[in-house]
């Protein structure tokens, strides 16, 4: 059985055939070739696959593609400006050395945007709690936490 879904991905309308049990992560990576979204585990624990669904962070390995029917998905590719510049949160990660191997980075940035959007004045402790769903094995989180605070300022959510 395959189903036709219509949704928006990174601002563009997409119509596609998917199996009912196709995960959103697999749909993005394999059918749309948006490989910036990564798969780091099989228990929905690592957050590397985090994308935005109607503006809220979700683990795309824990959402079916069919559940995105009629909705809007944004991936790391979708927040990247076309002109070669960076989203303020991406820029903050670069400035603060908030990434090393880069594998968790897309999910981390997508989660960070969620954290500061909903908690504009997040303290260090709140930022750490906000990143609970994202594993990083390289940075020890120290510079990621700094990046999220700096990104919040750059995004203008903090005056």
């Amino acid at each position: 059985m395959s189903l036709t879904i219509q949704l928006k991905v990174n601002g563009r309308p997409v119509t596609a055939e998917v199996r009912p049990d196709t995960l959103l992560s697999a749909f993005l990576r394999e059918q749309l070739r948006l490989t910036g979204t990564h798969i780091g585990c099989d228990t929905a624990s690592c957050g590397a696959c985090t994308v935005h669904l109607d503006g809220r962070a979700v683990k795309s390995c824990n959402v079916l593609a069919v559940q995105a029917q009629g909705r809007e998905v944004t991936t790391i590719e979708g927040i990247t400006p076309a002109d070669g510049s960076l989203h303020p949160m991406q820029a903050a990660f670069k400035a603060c050395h908030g990434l090393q191997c880069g594998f968790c980075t897309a999910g981390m940035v997508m989660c960070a945007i969620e954290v500061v959007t909903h908690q504009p004045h997040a303290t260090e402790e709140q930022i750490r709690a906000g990143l609970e769903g994202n594993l990083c094995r390289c940075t020890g989180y120290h510079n990621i936490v700094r990046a999220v605070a700096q990104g919040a300022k750059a995004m203008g959510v903090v005056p």
Partner: protein
Amino acid sequence: MSAAQPLIGRSVERKEDYRFLTGAGQYTDDITLPQQSYACFLRSPHAHARIRSIDTAAAGASDGVLAVFTGKDLAGIGGLPCGWLIKSIDGSPMKEPKHPVLAEDKVRHAGDPLALVVAESVAQARAAAALIEVDYEVLPAVVDTATAASAKTAVHDIAPDNVCYTWAIGDKAAVDAAFARADHVTRLAIVNNRLIPNAIEPRAANAAYSRADDSYTLYVTSQNPHVERLLMTAFVLGLPEHKVRVIAPDVGGGFGSKIYLYAEETALVWAARRVGRPIKWTAERSESFLTDAHGRDHVSTAELALDRNGAFLALRVHTTANLGAYLSTFASCIPTILYATLLAGQYATPAVYCEVQAVFTNTTPVDAYRGAGRPEATYLLERTVEQAARELGIDPAELRRRNFIRSFPYASPVGLTYDTGDYEATLNRVLDIADVRGFAARKAESARRGLLRGIGYSCYIEACGIAPSNIAGALGARAGLFEAGEVRVHPTGKVTVFTGSHSHGQGHETTFAQVVADKLGLALEDVDIQHGDTGKVLFGMGTYGSRSLAVGGTAIIKAVDKIIAKGKKIAAHLLEASDADVEFAHGEFRVAGTDRKKTFGEVALAAYVPHNYPLDKLEPGLNENAFYDPTNFTFPAGSYVCEVEVDPDTGAVRVARFTASDDFGNVVNPMIVEGQVHGGLAQGIGQALLEGCVYGSDGQLLTGSYVDYAMPRASDLPGFRVDTVKGTPCTHNPLGVKGCGEAGAIGSPPAVMNAILDALAARGVKSLDMPATPYRVWQAIQAAARR
């Protein structure tokens, strides 16, 4: 164009970050080839079983299946090799049982692969694998490190007592004599918990065969693609090395686990020609838990002999090291050469003796994991020293200070010669930055909240930049340990550098470019670093043991020196001066004492458009390579202070403060170096507090997912205070660098555990093993209360 100020020493932002931040990185699983097919490995559900039969008929007939292979099909190829021969005390070589790519007669750990299914999709490959019928005769499993040698079951027939080797280092007689005259002996039983590396990118491979030129291309998550190729072609598959190209593209973390030649990529290369299609395999995380080489897993006893003033007289250590079911690529040298040689630490202990018994068990193979032997040595030594201080009533920092090595070079009693260091300096700095003087007030404040506060120290040393090849060879290494680099100057004066080091998070594309740009007087953007492709890079030994800048960087510098030397000759010709009169600085070749000069770009152009050029004496072109074999290890060292708060009602431990002072010699990019320390600290604190691999007595992995294996998350860790800037430069490489990738993971576990034991001392707790989970801390408090 010359850079305005030196790039070396500056925290420039990383060149590689744009692609990682925008999702444009290309990791192995991101690469899909034309005609791509997919693999699934059938893995043993049992830790130890004889394979009576395998029936693949139904799997072969399943939808979309292209081929099914078992150990019988691969019987003609070699086993996965071990790269280091260790000899036992009696001179006999270690037991080297065959490590088949797919299990042949027996499976020896849960997850051991015994069949490969190739299909049109991953789902079809998995569905087919589930149809393979295996008749197992389940055997008792050998699991426990300490008792493996007395188990009634043998993992391998050639090692009936499960002992791979019994190895020793040091002067046993001198140690015994020192103990006989000691005023005090501190004794400690110590376990170094088994860890699962958990790079966030799971291992993956994609192998293709080209009939056109009878060649293979393998994309693989590797820290060292040339070594991967050499081992795979020469030792296992018998393929011509020059017909195999191994590409390690963007790699999402390694920490050691991606050094080794694994069964999966080997089987894929073998099968790619037979299937006639590229084959991709990406580990599920649950497969990674079962099959990525694990780390640590030592059971030891330590005895430290002291005189009445606290001077260390001798150290005696016995360690049993669990190697798992098979010898992984570097398994044998980790608990020996990379472990026991570090047991002198920062101390002038005159005599050290260590005996290591390495055992096979029905568990996942164990190999190097961030630090690789050195964390085990540091943990054992620093726990012992701290306990000695407590027993003698000497301040733990003071006891260390009394025993520091103070003159260099220093030949240790366990075979290393430390070239330089200043242990007093890092200790003093860390005591200052950590505000140790304020500890008592903080402890009182914690007590008001019902919490027990403790402080713990750790002074570590590590040997990095492995290694002089001749010394390694004498110690049993079966490979060289040099590094290679190539500097290709383009006609426009832009530069591409090819390095045999591999970057999987370390930032080589930036650090190496800083070095080369500075040396050649170029802007950072005019230098590109290429790595990770045997088709591009002339050779390489890869990245591990914090060796990239010290060894790989030096190879590049040697190639740069050759470029400059040739450039001087070209410039001398253009400037009508003698070679000896030409100087090079800030991107300009200049006749000494004059203003006559040629820019680097002008010289490069002349080399490729040699109209006015000394063709009779000099080849055109500007492209040089170099190999560098280090003359010694490098010896980073540092002092760490940890403060914890323990909740005695629940056993929960919180790291309240963590301060690190490291001596890495010179530092090229402080931001990157500090980032490396942060990451190491997280893994070390993770080992101390959270991470522990647990097997059931039947050999089943009980911590086989993130639901049961506790990875450090942001909320588990504090912000770190890290000081890395003022070091003693390494004396034997041109940059004076030592390596920084593993320090945090080496130095932090004992600091954390010493802090917890300090906090719990008032409750009568004297020993505690890692990980200090709330449950375990609570148990220790309960046990002490009953005593």
